[in-house]
């Protein structure tokens, strides 16, 4: 059997850049997630160190603010996923058009799913405000 010569371009984080051409929201989501992973681990260790060096607790507070911001796209995606599941793919889904129109005709529409992620993100951002004004200042 002839061996095929194949060349694999996959396996590099720089490939995320390909998203920019057609899914900018997805690109932001992916980049923020990768930064969040690193910041999360750093925050934990800075928090541990802050038991011995109390001044480091200020760094922890600022790191939490960064984490809070980095969580926005992650949380939005999670909420969108929940809204999508709740609405059977009608909201935020990209199911086949003819299927969706048949679904809308035959089923009772459930309202609120389209608003749910935006409302919850609003609460999350309000929480950040609370954190900054309540804990930091």
């Amino acid at each position: 059997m002839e061996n095929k010569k194949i060349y694999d371009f996959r396996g590099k984080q720089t490939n995320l850049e390909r998203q920019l051409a057609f899914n900018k929201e997805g690109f932001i989501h992916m980049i923020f997630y990768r930064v969040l992973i690193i910041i999360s681990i750093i925050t934990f260790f800075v928090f541990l160190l802050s038991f011995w060096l109390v001044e480091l607790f200020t760094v922890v507070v600022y790191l939490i603010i960064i984490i809070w911001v980095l969580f926005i796209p992650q949380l939005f995606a999670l909420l969108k996923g929940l809204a999508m599941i709740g609405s059977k793919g009608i909201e935020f889904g990209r199911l086949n058009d003819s299927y969706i129109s048949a679904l809308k005709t035959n089923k009772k529409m459930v309202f609120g799913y389209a608003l749910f992620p935006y409302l919850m993100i609003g609460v999350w951002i309000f929480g950040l405000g609370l954190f900054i004004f309540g804990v930091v200042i």
Partner: protein
Amino acid sequence: MKESWVSLPTIYVPMAGIPILLFLYTISVLSGLQLISKIFLTLSMVGLLVFGVSGFRDVYIGSLLKKSTELKRTLKANKEEGQSNIKPTSTGAKLIKFNVKRFNPETQRLEESIYNVETDAFSNVLDGLLKIKAETDPTLSMRYSCRMGICGSCGMVINGKPSLACENNVWENAKNGEISIAPMLGHPLLKDLVTDFDDFFEKHLFVNPYLFRNDLNEKYHPTKQYEQTKEELDKFLPFSYCIMCGLCVDACPVVNTNPEFIGPQALSQAYRYYADSRDEAGEARLEHLDLLKGVWDCEFAASCSDVCPKGVDPAFAIQLLKTEIIKNDLSRNKDIKS
């Protein structure tokens, strides 16, 4: 083999837990409850560590395991480069510049060839490429078959977006008289625009894309029909439209960074069979996919659904699978306790 621990420390649990804990921490600080605030802060920090470590293993280690071939892009324009583009011809056609990035297996590089192609209002990208092959450069390789968006063979990247060449009109996609075409880099490359689908089909096979029945007598000596209601059909119908074009896999940022991930096409088909009322392998299917390289590697960028030409919405299917796996784990834990 099932990794039973997987569904707990995945993205979802820390993602739902950390925000709530941070919120509770903020509220307890504002309320002056110092001890409670410290508990919430410590818990959120532990949550962050779990989130960070599981994510690190998933995102960075996964991609480090796979050594990719470095592709370098060189420019190799043909003689027609520099000619003015988008000229209306006497027949009402337009000259469109096709910038085709071709993979050269000898140099292992993407080389750009530029062709000016006369197109009319109804020409699709595949027509343009076939015209190049017939009239200008017979060495240009691409995969195609039905020319009407049914077979899913002519997947390629058009202006940066994975698309079917036969379903994209040239004039609608030409920006300033130019159109850019490249192979799907989310699959291993063979030559020019042709990609290798062995890995794709292996992953498809991994999810057992067929119905399991326990009634073997009925299977070999059928006596009745397996009837389904409209509701039962609706549960899996849109996911059965998949034509296996591979665009979703190419668009998936996780597959692009970690080829070990099973990918959106296979997972959407796993859900298609799981949701089918005729299938009797429900729980076993979920256990089979409860893996880091299974459903939990999906980060829900939803790029797969953006590019799907048939409206299969693989991202939705994967979220449904995640929900079913969590429900299944919870109900099993409940059973064990009772």
